[in-house]
């Protein structure tokens, strides 16, 4: 328990976590500075401004009481599903796929926001579900539908990575809510059967290629496998201490594709080595552990499920992205939160953080009473 010295608004903030998040974000800015060849533009400056604005925003969000999030869970979910449909329709009208809505001042990517929204919606569902229903079928299918609808639309966009994250986020909440374990075991078995089938029949050619190439990147070193090969080269050539700040050749000579977005970890690893990579992983794990702890301390079922679910969403971002850049997963286009250049994932993660801090604040209030 932190001290209860006034001013209360500041004291109740989880300073250690905010510090960690700021450290991660700042480190990301440093890496982007190097990726741009030692220049604030075009990435560090806008990313930095956005980061601190969004961080401040998340602190503001932390002031919103838990019940507001709870109340907003359904409407947000509904609105985002509508937005997803709208995006799909717009895409159909204009020809070609589209993932965002242009609201004039911002390009809103509904699928990105759906990642925390699905967690909130599922948490809200299990919050409403009477405890004795938990082990019945009625506890499973509505959640499956909740997850299935946005996942299917996103999959159709097609955005395999985001669809997977929506499913994973929802499934995490189901798991935490106490759905019988055998369902997950059964699900895993079903998935191991379904995935090869899906690869062969349900995926787009480029998605199938990515997966096949992931299994054997050297088969196409200049095509789709190029990303994975170059990323592994960047990480592997970094060694223990890295090549030094601004000395990465893979990123500076453009061998590493997407070195400032999805593959920013490789850019970092090349210059900061294993040490930098492990510190970053540790920092992320600490933030995520804090999120889970927030859930464990939470009093309401909604807060518990939402907090642990949101923390796990951040975890999925990190884990999928790192597995991708290290050649352990296919290239699915998941950025490294707080690190990759780009506003959407930054916003989502800091939104998660804001909600987590809001729950955390509620916890302290409760304990104080």
């Amino acid at each position, binding site marked *: 328990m932190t001290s209860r010295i006034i001013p209360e608004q500041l004291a109740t903030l989880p300073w250690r976590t905010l510090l960690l998040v700021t450290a991660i974000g700042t480190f990301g800015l440093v890496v982007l500075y190097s990726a741009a060849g030692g220049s604030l533009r075009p990435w560090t400056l806008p990313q930095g401004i956005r980061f601190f604005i969004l961080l401040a925003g998340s602190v503001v969000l932390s002031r919103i009481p838990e019940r507001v999030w709870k109340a907003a869970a359904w409407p947000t979910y509904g609105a985002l599903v509508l937005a997803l449909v709208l995006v799909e329709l717009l895409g159909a009208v204009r020809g070609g796929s589209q993932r965002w809505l242009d609201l004039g001042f911002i390009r809103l990517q509904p699928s990105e926001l759906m990642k925390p929204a699905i967690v909130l919606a599922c948490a809200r569902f299990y919050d409403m579900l009477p405890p004795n229903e938990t082990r019945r079928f009625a506890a499973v299918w509505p959640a499956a539908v909740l997850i299935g609808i946005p996942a299917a639309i996103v999959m159709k966009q097609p955005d395999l990575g985001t669809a997977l994250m929506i499913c994973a986020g929802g499934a995490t909440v189901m798991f935490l*809510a106490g759905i019988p374990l055998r369902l997950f075991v059964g699900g895993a078995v079903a998935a191991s059967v379904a995935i090869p089938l899906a690869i062969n029949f349900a995926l787009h050619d480029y998605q199938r290629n990515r997966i096949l190439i992931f299994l054997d990147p050297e088969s196409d070193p200049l095509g789709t496998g190029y990303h994975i090969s170059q990323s592994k080269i960047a*990480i*592997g050539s970094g*060694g223990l201490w890295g090549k030094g700040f601004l000395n990465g050749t893979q990123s500076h000579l453009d061998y590493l594709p997407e070195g400032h977005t999805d593959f920013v970890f490789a850019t970092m690893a090349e210059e900061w080595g294993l040490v930098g990579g*492990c510190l970053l992983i540790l920092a992320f794990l600490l933030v995520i*552990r804090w999120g889970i702890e927030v859930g*464990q301390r939470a009093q309401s079922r909604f807060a518990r499920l939402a907090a642990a679910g949101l923390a796990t969403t951040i975890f999925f971002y990190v884990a999928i992205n790192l*597995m991708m850049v290290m050649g352990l997963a296919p290239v699915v286009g998941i950025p490294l939160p707080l690190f990759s250049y780009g506003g959407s994932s930054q916003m989502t993660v800091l939104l998660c953080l804001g909600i987590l801090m809001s729950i955390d604040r509620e916890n302290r209030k409760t304990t104080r009473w």
Partner: protein
Amino acid sequence: MRRPPRVVTEMSQAYSFSRRAWMLGAVQGGVGLMLAGRMAWLSIAQNERYTMLSESNRVNMTLLPPRRGWIVDRHGVPIANNRTDFRVDIIPDRLRDKERVLPLLGRILQLPPEEIERIAIDLDHAAGFQPVQVAENLDWERFAAVSVRLPELPGVAPTRGFARNYPAGAAVAHLTGYVGVPNAEQYKKTRDPLLVTPGFKLGKDGLEKMLEPALRGEAGAKRVEVTARGKLVAELATKPDVPGKTARLTIDAGLQEYAARRLGTNSGSVVVIDCRTGEMLAMVSMPAYDPNSFSDGISHLEWQMLSDDDHVPLMNKVTQGLYPPGSTVKPMNGLALLHAGVPADARVNCSGAMRLGTSVFHCHKRGGHGPLDLKNAIMQSCDIYFYEMARRVGYAAIAPIARTLGMGQKFDLPFSTQRFGTMPDPDWKLHKYKRPWTVADSLNASIGQGYVLANPLQLAVMAARIASGRDLQPSILASQVHRDAPALAIDSENLARVREAMFGVINQGGTGGAAKLLIPGVAIAGKTGTAQVRRITMAERRSGVLKNGQLPFKLRDHALFIGFAPADNPRYALAVVLEHNGHTVRNLDTPMIGRDIMTYMLDRERALKSLAEVEPTWGGDIRTRMAATAASYRAAQSAPPAAIATKTDATVPSDAPAVENATDVANRTQADLATAGGGVAEDGTTERGQ
């Protein structure tokens, strides 16, 4: 069967959450550890491998084609050397947006539209990794203009390198061969990256091909730091190339060029041999292609022009051309007759014809020579004498001596295609044609017709062996001269007699008077020859044998000459063979050509002066005449676009169909003549009747 449903309360739910959240956290921690482990595996365990890959990304190695070893003559004068060359190629694999790049490149380099079209066609045929030549021999300004605009020209590769240069041009074409870009098969066989490096060329034919391993050298490498898009960031250390070794020939470059020019418009060949060592001082086959333009890559049109030419410029007549040696075998016959015990003063009466069974064999002199001995028979080139003597001793007594003198022999020389002809004897015929040798065969062979076929090199060797009395072996590489040749197994007194007769041919009113040297105190000894390539029918003989000038080129007689000088102390021996020359123009006939080439060796000034006088009469020097021929051929053909494309297939002059055809036709004619019976008559030389 069914388990009683577990009662779930809020308390148990909270407990279950807490347990599962802990599990989740543990899994997440585990994944974190796994990621760190994976990263350690990549960056520590496999660091070496990935560091190397990262280096090979960063550093772009460009092979520098090695400078090819020179080919120099016996005095060190370059026959093939290298000149600095600024060139531009396109690597088809890396070319993007051909429609934009080609016209832009054309503008920068100021290429004519035909060239752009040629490049476009070549690109369509190209095998992806093989560079397509855009332009060679660029001046610095245009080369620099391409270099600075390189980022706009993906796939375009400007290189500063070395191009092969043959100062004497066509005069050495069949000696050196030429170099060219490796073909796709050669690359697929070795996968040597050097083979697809722009500007690299390897020997395609002749000595360039046979001496390839020594001449090639080792490639250097230029290391530059480049971005993924190929933009140059920095130049790193460069490893210089190791130039190929110089190949020194026994050839005398001046003589080689002189002989080539002296052949004039003839389709012919010259070999000059040093009588003391067997070194080849000249090996000329004309007309020829220009190895400089061959090395740049020639068009289908040029190839067609060379293939269509009835003077067969693609053929190395010295090693590939086979000719009936005609009367040039008579000194050799003389040696054989003496060896077989025929007295030198035995006489045969020549009445102009000799009956054998139902056939009549004629002498070239219609009225006959009257009675003559061996010396006079050689001097007058009397056919009847040799018919009669061959009939007496049989050809089996002559063939071994012929072989001793080099007929039918294959020499150890670095040329891939050597045809070594036929020195027939009864066993050979029985084996080859399953028919017994006849007296008529002996008669035909005795005047160097019938089955007898030789290449010009063999004729020169024969002259050199008669002149030196030693078993000389020809050599062309200075490092492989066969010195200290043993004496021939032939009585030196007989050799002296035959040399004396050959002296008489030229200096004592024989058939070769035109070859008489104009240098005071030095004499040439030799023997002329004429080889008929058609049958003369009885009807034609009655109405008067057609003059060569009345016949189409392909039916005219071959003219031959062998000789050595100085006659009393032989230093140089030579053979001149002129296809279908027909003895029509004195200046362009064998004796005078032979004389002038000998003169060059003994008195250079005089030889050059006489060439300067006669050369304009046949249209100037080699380059001038070749340019004129090419221009008129191009004018006569309205070239289809495909014809301007660079010829990329593997056929080289030595294997050209045109060469095969020419040889086949010649062989068939010869076989026809040999089997026809009735005999062919020898025609003497232009000296007749003087």
